[in-house]
């Protein structure tokens, strides 16, 4: 099987890998919406969605009931609903951009997965650890930032195309907010790459290399960057919340003052695309955070994946790696939701103030601090 796969032309392999990635990402996004409801319910002392059931699943003793209580079938119901709902287009919208906006939202979100490694395996021939990645390019994090920030255009487009004041305000807010936090976010990862690209090494921005540098031998080598550079992680995390428009930073859609923000005029399937894009964003953002600061697919600090899977068959090892990575990512997705149902939304001016007056100086100071610190270490 693997041989067959490896013998395929590269573009076919890429396509297959891409489809698999999308096939995983979109359901994960759906599951996130479900999880969001469940998490909010639990936090609020409710059972959450627990009614929908497919008859033949219901016939399975215990399991059927348990699945129903978990609300998994609501996902299907939701999806079906989005697909079959009447497609209402308000008369006053700019049709072309209105239709394009959700696509613009989803495409960059899905594209970023290309450069994000989601696991690793020991290549049988070289006996070295190879990343599971669609495109192992050197630009890595830069590509993530570059493509990921394209999604703001979707929001602006949606806001503009809706030809209505609340969506417009939402779009404006989205653009301002993304620009504000993009800076801090980018600055916050510089120390990581300073560390990874210690003088002597060949310069890389690959996320695989970031993980690799967290799986070295020795105390500092096996330490995850979150312990090494907590301030970076913190700034990155905060900026990530802002970038993904998650509460407490969901300015573009803040329903209390903007009705529904940029997607006020959207409904049914088009609206669901925004939804999926947001969750994909969140998933990939979580993944990047895991890679940068939580050791990627390494199961525990100082215990690199290689150590665990060296004796396993290749495919099992790969699965363990993917499992570790997904586990951490899912925890992070949960963390996103947890925060959402804990913190209240900021006021817009607070968001701006925080971004420019607090986070950005902090990020700059942080870069300077780590640059100096790393220089000191290198020099010594």
């Amino acid at each position, binding site marked *: 099987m693997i041989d067959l796969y490896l013998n395929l032309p590269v573009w076919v392999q890429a396509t297959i890998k891409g489809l698999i990635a999308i096939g995983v990402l979109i359901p994960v996004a759906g599951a996130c919406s479900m999880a969001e409801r469940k*998490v909010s319910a639990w*936090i609020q*002392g*409710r*059972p959450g969605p627990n009614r929908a059931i497919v008859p033949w699943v219901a016939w399975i003793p215990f399991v059927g009931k348990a699945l129903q209580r978990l609300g998994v079938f609501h996902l299907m119901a939701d999806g079906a609903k989005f697909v079959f709902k009447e497609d209402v287009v308000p008369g006053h919208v700019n049709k072309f951009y209105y239709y394009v906006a959700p696509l613009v939202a989803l495409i960059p979100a899905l594209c970023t997965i290309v450069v994000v490694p989601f696991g690793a395996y020991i290549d049988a021939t070289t006996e070295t650890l190879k990343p599971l990645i669609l495109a192992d390019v050197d630009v890595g994090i830069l590509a993530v930032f570059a493509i990921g920030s394209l999604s703001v255009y979707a929001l602006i487009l949606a806001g503009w195309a809706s030809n209505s004041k609340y969506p417009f305000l939402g779009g404006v807010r989205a653009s301002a907010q993304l620009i504000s936090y993009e800076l801090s976010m980018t600055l916050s990862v510089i120390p990581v790459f300073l560390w990874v690209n210690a003088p002597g090494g060949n310069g890389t921005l690959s996320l695989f290399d970031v993980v690799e540098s967290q799986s070295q031998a020795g105390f500092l080598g096996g330490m995850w960057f979150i312990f090494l550079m907590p301030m970076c992680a913190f700034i990155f995390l905060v900026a990530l919340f802002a970038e993904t428009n998650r509460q407490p930073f969901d300015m573009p859609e803040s329903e209390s003052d903007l009705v529904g923000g940029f997607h006020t005029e959207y409904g049914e399937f088009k609206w669901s695309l925004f939804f999926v894009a947001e969750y994909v964003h969140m998933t990939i953002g979580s993944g990047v955070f895991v890679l940068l600061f939580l050791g990627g697919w390494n199961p525990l600090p100082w215990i690199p994946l290689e150590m665990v899977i060296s004796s396993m068959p290749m495919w099992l090892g790969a699965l363990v790696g993917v499992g570790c990575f997904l586990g951490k990512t899912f925890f992070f997705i949960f963390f996103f939701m*947890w*925060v959402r149902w*804990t*913190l209240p939304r900021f006021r817009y001016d607070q968001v701006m103030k925080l971004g420019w007056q607090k986070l950005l100086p902090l990020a700059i100071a942080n870069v300077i601090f780590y640059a100096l610190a790393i220089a000191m270490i290198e020099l010594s």
Partner: protein
Amino acid sequence: MSFKTVERKPLTFAERTYVPQIVNGLMTTFKKMVKPNETLEYPEARPPIPEGYRGVPTLVKDPNGREKCVSCQLCEFVCPPKAIRIKPGEIDPTSDSAHVEKAPEAFDIDMLRCIYCGLCQEVCPEEAIWLQNVFSLSGYTREEMVNDKDKLYELGGTLPDKHFKWDQKKAAEDRGNAAH
């Protein structure tokens, strides 16, 4: 001076970062998450209906099975949304409760109009109309939502009576003035 400046304790550095507060908040919500649910899973689980709950208005019978309503139409009069419609009628002289003389021939409550205010119950001199514990009423048509007399008695059932005033009246009639 119509206002007073309240002295506030200056925030510490930790407080100003808000991080401890956020962590605290996260702890709180996490604790809530693992606690059992507080909601009631209607309709499998039903809430306990408290005494004096004002549910769907119903008509009741007394323990002897006599319909208590005498169609005085006070409820019809007092009903703020005009949901009640009564057609008065005379009780058949051969009936056991012929001494009551009057009973509704038709009694309709339009539940689409009813606002559950309970004034009808309050005004009823015969204690015949009661807002009981039925709180969910639904139907597919407007007609279905108009409760007629049969439906009202079905919903209302029989309530205990303290007075039995009509029975006493009948007994007095049977006894005549001789007793005193």
